[in-house]
């Protein structure tokens, strides 16, 4: 059972090895001629006004929060979809209620304007 995951682990090792190898190859074989201009951050030929690491728009964060809510919901729907045949009509109604609640929440979020970028 778990043995089936072994190739995945093997490939993880291989892929990581490849990743590291590629970084090292580029690092060793490429030329090294650094200059202050070359090493400065690119901002269309100008010195950056300030550090790029700053507080950024909260809407990105909202999207992330909403994602978690809906992703959790998917985590519930997947197992249901697998055993759907055994559950039959009862399972359908149960999931219908669950999805309906979620849909109401979704409409609420929408109406509240959390999905707006304006």
């Amino acid at each position, binding site marked *: 059972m778990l*043995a*089936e*995951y072994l*190739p*995945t682990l*093997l*490939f*993880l090792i*291989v*892929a*990581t090895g*490849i*990743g590291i190898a*590629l*970084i090292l*190859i*580029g*690092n060793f074989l*490429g*030329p*090294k*001629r*650094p200059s202050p201009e*070359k*090493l*400065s*951050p*690119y*901002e*269309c030929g100008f010195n*950056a006004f300030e*550090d*790029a*690491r700053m507080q*950024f*728009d909260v809407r*990105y964060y909202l*999207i*992330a929060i*909403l*994602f978690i809510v*809906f*992703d959790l919901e*998917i985590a519930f*729907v*997947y197992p249901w*979809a*697998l*055993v*759907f*045949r055994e559950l*039959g009509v009862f399972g*359908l109604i149960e999931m219908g209620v669950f*999805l309906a609640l979620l*849909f109401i929440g*979704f409409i609420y979020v*929408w109406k509240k304007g959390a*999905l707006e*970028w*304006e």
Partner: protein
Amino acid sequence: MPLELLVEWTIKLLIGFVILMTTVAYLSLFERRMLGFMQMRQGPNRVGPFGLLQPVADGLKFIFKEDITPLAADKFLYVMAPALSLVPALMTFVLIPIGGEMKIPFIDRPIALHVTSVNVGVLAILAMTGMGVYGIVMAGYASNNKYSLMGGLRSSAQLVSYELAMSMSIVGVLLQAGSLDLVKIVANQGGWGGMQWHVFWFQPLGFIIFLISMVAETNRAPFDLPEAESELVAGFHTEYSSMKFAMFFIAEYANMVTASAMATVLFLGGWQGPGVAQLPLLGPFYFVAKMLFFLFLYIWLRASLPRLRYDQLMDFGWKFLLPLALINIVISATVAVVLL
């Protein structure tokens, strides 16, 4: 653990890896030639016959370019990011079944044409492709460049939004197949003489949702906002050069291959097709043909469509695809109950 099995895996791993890397390399050439064809120009045709050695030349060029790490960058994250985006992209290929079990000369037992098959295959692939976003966000943050940062932020919000629609569009398939195992999902589509694909069997809507979100998930046109060259210069990989840039490039193309393979497995019947039951050898050819169709679609889209704006992209994902995917679940479930 039988040694025999270990050897089999190792061989499959090597073959799988070579196939993936070759596909990725030649996908870039295929894309450039197809784009050239659509845009009334030649595309690269100088290196080798028909430009067939172009990927090799590109690779060599990447290796011998200067590897720049900006002074302001967060060194550790900056170096880690390309690896973090490449490794999951390569790993997903382990789980893709490109053919059914078949007899191979000199081996007395049937060999399945996939490296491994786990009972949560779909989830595993979603998890691995979901990992890719970390590499992109890290690259955007570590570069300490505003274009990169904006690219990284755009990308995270975009991938996360379309992942929802994509995951939900798969539920319809799961209702039909009753398994997360990719091999079983394909086996479920073997009816009607190998033509009972999910796209025909009650999931056309799910297929379309999946198709759109898969393009968005791989950051390809018209959803290529994270690296929109006319706005963000190159987005999250603006500061990357040499092999590190190449790794993002390989990751993107590997993700395209994986997404095409997933679409094939979930909706177009994987290796199933007319005549496969009699001649299993046809399976891999069907699979590759279907995958090529999706890869061509990627290129075709890139040649035809302008780029969406950011708010339009989010609106489309949240206000159109997501409700549509929810509705698709309800319809699929109802239909399935009625048919039971």
